[in-house]
């Protein structure tokens, strides 16, 4: 029997051949493909803190390779640490940059084109410590290159360099500017028209018609009127609307010589409310009846305020409660407590989630826009009423646009709905 001779030339050649065959047939990682057409451009319509890096990658490999795509920045001849991209976006995901015309969307392209080209925001923080790419556009131009599979160093060509700049006008907002001017123009026209023809018809709003009745009842019963300006600051327009209504209510309360209580959630609102009520009393010819102590700050903690106002309702038993402005979870607690005391309650808010609670527990509820119309309605000032007329016309315009947009979308045209989509 012949023994195995490892020095045998034929044996060595056979083994080498088999080994080569195994190496060829064995699965191995896909060879990384270099990103194609890398391009770095300034981000349009921004404040100068971002650039866009776009490049192409072959579709099927991308999902495997994506976690290995890195950006390497070259900044003033200093190579920065590479940053791993956490996600990649398609151009069609960003109509605010590329417009609505880009069609590399989901269904329309061949598989190879699915992810090509790809853009990625490269944002830089204001503190000079960028979170994605370690370069700061504020300092000048920079260049980047992409590396796929760093182990294999499948690099792109340098993507060039760009200076990130801030723009003076956001072109994506052109339609919004046009709409703002249109609505403002309509409203201003009717305000001016109201000067010439002050007889403007305004539909009856039951909640506002009941204001006189509520204050009159409080006067007859010798009980105070309670007014809440909501739980937001004066930066919220519904609070401004509530303070405007407070002025009208205070004028009537002063005329009837009743008491008005205004516990406030916000100290700024308190200060303004004091001024508004004081002037209302002066204009009503009852400055002596004004009591600054009745308009006071309680607390700026939501449920502490709620507990305090509920206590006032139960102790003072006001005959009329006005809950106007912006409310949160406390709306039902306040309105239900007021309901148990038997007071006439008039609520008004544009907080949609709280409207059902007010409708359930209050005698009258001003829904959304009625809150803003209240000041004009109560004063009957022609110029203020004119703005309501203009507002109604603008609303009619929006209704027509919604109808047309729905119609066009139904027939496959997205033109109108895209025009109204904020970018």
């Amino acid at each position: 029997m012949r023994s195995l001779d490892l020095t045998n030339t034929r044996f060595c050649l056979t083994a080498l051949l088999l080994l080569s065959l195994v190496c060829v047939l064995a699965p191995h990682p896909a060879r990384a493909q270099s990103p194609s057409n890398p391009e770095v451009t300034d981000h349009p319509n921004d404040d100068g803190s971002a650039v866009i890096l776009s490049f192409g990658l072959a579709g099927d490999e991308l999902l495997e390779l994506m976690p290995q795509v890195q950006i390497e920045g070259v900044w003033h001849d200093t190579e920065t640490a590479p940053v791993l991209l956490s996600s990649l976006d398609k151009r069609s995901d960003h109509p605010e940059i590329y417009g609505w015309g880009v069609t590399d969307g989901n269904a329309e392209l061949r598989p190879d084109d699915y992810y090509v080209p790809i853009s990625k925001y490269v944002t830089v923080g204001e503190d000079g410590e960028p979170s994605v790419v370690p370069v700061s556009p504020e300092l000048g131009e920079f260049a980047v290159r992409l590396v796929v599979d760093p182990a294999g160093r499948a690099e792109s060509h340098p993507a060039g360099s760009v200076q990130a700049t801030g723009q003076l006008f956001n072109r994506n907002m052109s339609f919004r500017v046009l709409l703002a001017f249109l609505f403002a123009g309509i409203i201003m026209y009717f305000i001016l028209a109201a000067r010439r023809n002050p007889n403007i018809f305004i539909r009856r709003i039951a909640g506002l018609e009941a204001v006189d009745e509520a204050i009159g009842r409080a006067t007859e019963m010798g009980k105070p009127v309670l007014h809440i300006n909501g739980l937001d600051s004066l930066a919220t327009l519904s609070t401004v609307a509530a303070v405007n209504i407070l002025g009208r209510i205070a004028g009537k309360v002063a005329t009837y010589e009743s008491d008005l209580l205004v516990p406030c959630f916000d100290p700024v609102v308190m200060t303004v409310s004091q001024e508004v009520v004081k002037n209302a009393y002066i204009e009503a010819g009852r400055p002596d009846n004004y009591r600054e102590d009745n308009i006071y700050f309680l607390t700026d903690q939501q449920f502490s305020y709620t507990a305090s106002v509920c206590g006032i309702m139960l102790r003072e038993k006001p005959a009329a409660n006005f809950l106007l402005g912006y409310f949160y979870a406390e709306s039902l607690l306040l309105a239900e407590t007021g309901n148990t005391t038997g007071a006439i309650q008039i609520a008004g808010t544009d907080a949609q989630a709280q409207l059902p609670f007010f409708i359930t527990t209050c005698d009258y509820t001003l829904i959304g826009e009625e809150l803003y119309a209240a000041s004009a309605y109560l004063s009957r000032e022609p110029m203020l009423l004119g703005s309501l007329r203009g507002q109604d016309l603008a609303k009619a315009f929006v209704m027509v646009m919604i109808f047309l947009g729905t119609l066009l979308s139904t027939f496959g045209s997205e033109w109108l709905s895209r025009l109204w989509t904020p970018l």
Partner: protein
Amino acid sequence: MMFLRKQLPIILAFVIGLGLWLQAYIPHRTSSAGLTTFTQSWAVILAGCALLLGILSAVHHHWTKIKLRRQGFAYSIITLGAFVVTLVAGLSWWNWPGFGAAKMADGSLFTWIFDNVFTPLAATMFSLLAFFIASAAFRAFRARSFEATALLIAGCIVMLGRVPIGELIPLGGGHDLSDVAGWIMNVPNAAAQRAILVGVILSQVAISIRIIFGIERTYMGGSD
């Protein structure tokens, strides 16, 4: 004096209002840094001053109530007592016995009061909402009219459809009660909410114009 009380606020409202409106369309950082930061800084300063006024107002209100022995003055004693204790705890630079930190740091008397007194009390008030919702729902769901009946039926469907049992109530065609609940929320409910929203936004545009152009002046204590 009249200029400071009447004209100046209108001029400020016009300039700042118009400036902030235009600023929304200018993305350049000079715009946001210049105007937004400026107004925000002023808002913080004013809020700080106003908070001081607010505290003085609250103390004055409760002190007067105690002094005149008005109804419920005992609550004012508790309020002022709690105010003083919390204020002292928050400002004291020494460690109170049994507490490992001073002022408002973690482990201080102040945080103990906040965590063990204030937070449970606030949670108690919030939890009352469950009972209030029950009584309000009872009133809302009394089927006295067509609208109330429709509300009752829709409410029951949504409540059942939003809990797991809703998915076990088949309605045929592969649908169950949760699908109907979803439809009610996403179609009629969303449509009504958007209608309200459109009205609110247009009203906000109108009131902004009235304030910017000085047509609405009630908020500054003046007549129109």
